[in-house]
C-alpha cells in the first residue's frame, strides 16, 4: 500500500497540489471573512453589552447545526460551487472568534481602562492601545479554534462543488481507492496540525506576560 501511495502521490502530484491550494484558499478566505465579521462584531457587542447574549446565542446555534447540513442548506440558497462553500465555512468560524473577542475585551482589567481614560485617551485610542492588545491572546485563541474547525469542515466543501482536498477523499471513497483517500486526508490533516501549531505559537507570543520573553 505504501508503494501505491507513493505512486498516487507521484502520478497525481499536480492534482494534490491543486486540491491543497484550493483547500488553503477556502480556509483562508473563510477565515479572513470570519475575522472581518466576528472581530468588529465582538468589539461592537462590548459597547452594547445588552445585545451580547442574544447575538452570541444565535452564532452558537449556527455552530450546533451539523456541518454537512449547513452545507446542504447552502445549495437551495446559493447553489453549488466555491461561494456557498465559503459562506458556510465563514458561518462556522464566527462563533469562536466572536465569543473570544467579546470575552477578551470585557475581561481587560478595568484599572487599565480607567488609567487610559484618565490620561486623556479617546475611546478609539483605548480600543487600539489598551483593549485590543490586552485581549489579543484570547482573541488569537478564538482564531485558532476557528481555523482548525474550518480546515476540517473544508474537506466537506467538495460535496457542494467547493473543491479542495475533499475532492480526492470522496473520489477515493467512491472508487474504493485507499491511497487516493489518503492523498486527500494526509495533506488535510497536515494543514490542520500546521495551523494549530503556528497559531498556538502566535497566541503565546501575544500574551502580555510573555512579551518580555521575546
Amino acid at each position, binding site marked *: 500500500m505504501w508503494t501505491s501511495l507513493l505512486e498516487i502521490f507521484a502520478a497525481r502530484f499536480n492534482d494534490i497540489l491543486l486540491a491543497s491550494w484550493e483547500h488553503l484558499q477556502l480556509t483562508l478566505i473563510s477565515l479572513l471573512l470570519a475575522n472581518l465579521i466576528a472581530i468588529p462584531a465582538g468589539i461592537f457587542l462590548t459597547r452594547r453589552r445588552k445585545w451580547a447574549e442574544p447575538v452570541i446565542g444565535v452564532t452558537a446555534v449556527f455552530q450546533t447545526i451539523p456541518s454537512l447540513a449547513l452545507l446542504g442548506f447552502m445549495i437551495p440558497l446559493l447553489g453549488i460551487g466555491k461561494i456557498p462553500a465559503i459562506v458556510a465555512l465563514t458561518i462556522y468560524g464566527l462563533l469562536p472568534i466572536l465569543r473570544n473577542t467579546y470575552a477578551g475585551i470585557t475581561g481587560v482589567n478595568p484599572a487599565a481602562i480607567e488609567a487610559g481614560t*484618565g490620561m486623556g485617551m479617546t475611546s478609539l485610542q483605548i480600543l487600539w492601545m489598551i483593549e485590543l*492588545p490586552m485581549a489579543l491572546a484570547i482573541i488569537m485563541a478564538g482564531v485558532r479554534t476557528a481555523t482548525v474547525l474550518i480546515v476540517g469542515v473544508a474537506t466537506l466543501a467538495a460535496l457542494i462543488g467547493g473543491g479542495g482536498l475533499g475532492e480526492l477523499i470522496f473520489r477515493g471513497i467512491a472508487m474504493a481507492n485507499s491511497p487516493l483517500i489518503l492523498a486527500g486526508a494526509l495533506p488535510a490533516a497536515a494543514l490542520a496540525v500546521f495551523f494549530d501549531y503556528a497559531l498556538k505559537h502566535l497566541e503565546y507570543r501575544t500574551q502580555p506576560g510573555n512579551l518580555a520573553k521575546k
Partner: protein
Amino acid sequence: MIEFQNISKTYKPGHPVVKNLNLHVNKGEILVLIGPSGCGKTTTMKMVNRLVEPTAGRILINGEDISMQNPVELRKNIGYVIQNIGLLPHMTIAENVALVPKLKGWNKADYLQRVDELLRMVNLSPEIYRRRYPQELSGGQQQRIGVIRAMAADPPIILMDEPFSALDPISREQLQDELLRLQETVSKTILFVTHDIAEALKIASRICLLKDGDIVQLGTPEQILRHPANDFVRDFIGENRLRSEDSLPTIAEVMKPPVTSRPNRGLAEATMLMRKQKVDTLLVVDANRQLLGKVTMWDIHNRFQNEAILLKDLLRPVLYKVAPQDSLKEALQIISRHAIAYLPVVTDQNELVGVITRSCLVDVMAERWLDSETINLQEVVPHVDQSA
C-alpha cells in the same frame, strides 16, 4: 486652582454620595481628602477629571468651568494616579511613562528624554528599567512609575487616589518621602485621597476630612490635631493625637496652688512661710487675690535687719505670666527661653489662680513617656517649688 462649588453627586436616587461640597484647592498645595471607606473621596476626586459628572454644582479650574471643556483635553492636563496603579502590561516602562506626552503629540526625542529624566527622579536607572515590562518590577517600583507617569507631561494638577495603600509600610514611607521631595522641586497642585491618617498628617498641606459626603473638618494637620472639630475627628485621628502638643493637659489642669502673702506682712513672718513651704519667692496678692508682685528670699535677706520694712516695700514686678486658657506649650517656651523656674497663672482680671513650676512640667512630660506604674514621680523628684 480647583474650586468645587456646591457639588453634589447621587448615584442612587435618595442616597447622595457627595452633598453640596464647597472646597478650594490652592495652587501648589497637597490637599488630602480623607475619610472612612465609602464616604465619597474617590467620587469627589473623579469629578475633577470628569470620570464622574456631578449631579449638581460646578467645578472651576483656574476660574474656568470644566463642564464646558472637552474631557479628553482636560484630562491630558491633569495627572492621574490610581490605587491599582493601572500600568499597561503590554507596554514597556518607557512606553507607559511616555503615554501622555505621546498623546499630546510631543516628538520622540523629547519624550524619550523626559522618560529618562523622570526615572532618574525616582532613583530608577533608565538604562535598566526603560525596556522592562511592568510585571518585572516590584510593587513599590510599579507605584513609582505610576506617579511619574502622571507627571510626564508636566501637568499643573495631579490627582492621586490611594496611590500607596497597597504597599508595605517601608515602601509606603519611602514613596511618601519621595513625593514630598518631588513636590519641593516641581510644586504641583495635588489632590490626594487616602484613608490613612498618618499618611495624611505627613504629606498634607491641608486635610479635608469627609464623612458621608460632608466635609467634617478642613484645615492644616496642625489645626486638625490641635482643634478637632468633634468626636468623629478625635476618633479618626486617634492615636496620632497623643503625639501632638494638643495632647498636653491644659494649664488649668497642671497648675499648683501658689504660695502667697499680703503686702503689709513683716519679713520674719514671710521667712517662716518660705521655710515651711520650701520656696524662695512669695507672690504678693491683695484681698481680692490680685497679683501685686513678688518678693524674693534674696531681697528679704538684704533688708532683714530693718524691722520697719514690710513686704510691700520689697515688691518686684512679675515680668512673665500666663493665663489659664493658654497652652502648656507656651508656658514651657517661656520657662525655657527665660530660664525661669516658675510662672504665675493669672486671669484676664489679674487674679492669681495658680502657678506652673518646673516640677509640674516634669510630671506632665513623664506621664507622656512612662507608664504611670513604672515609676512614682512624686517620690523620686524632689519637690523644689517656686525657686526663682
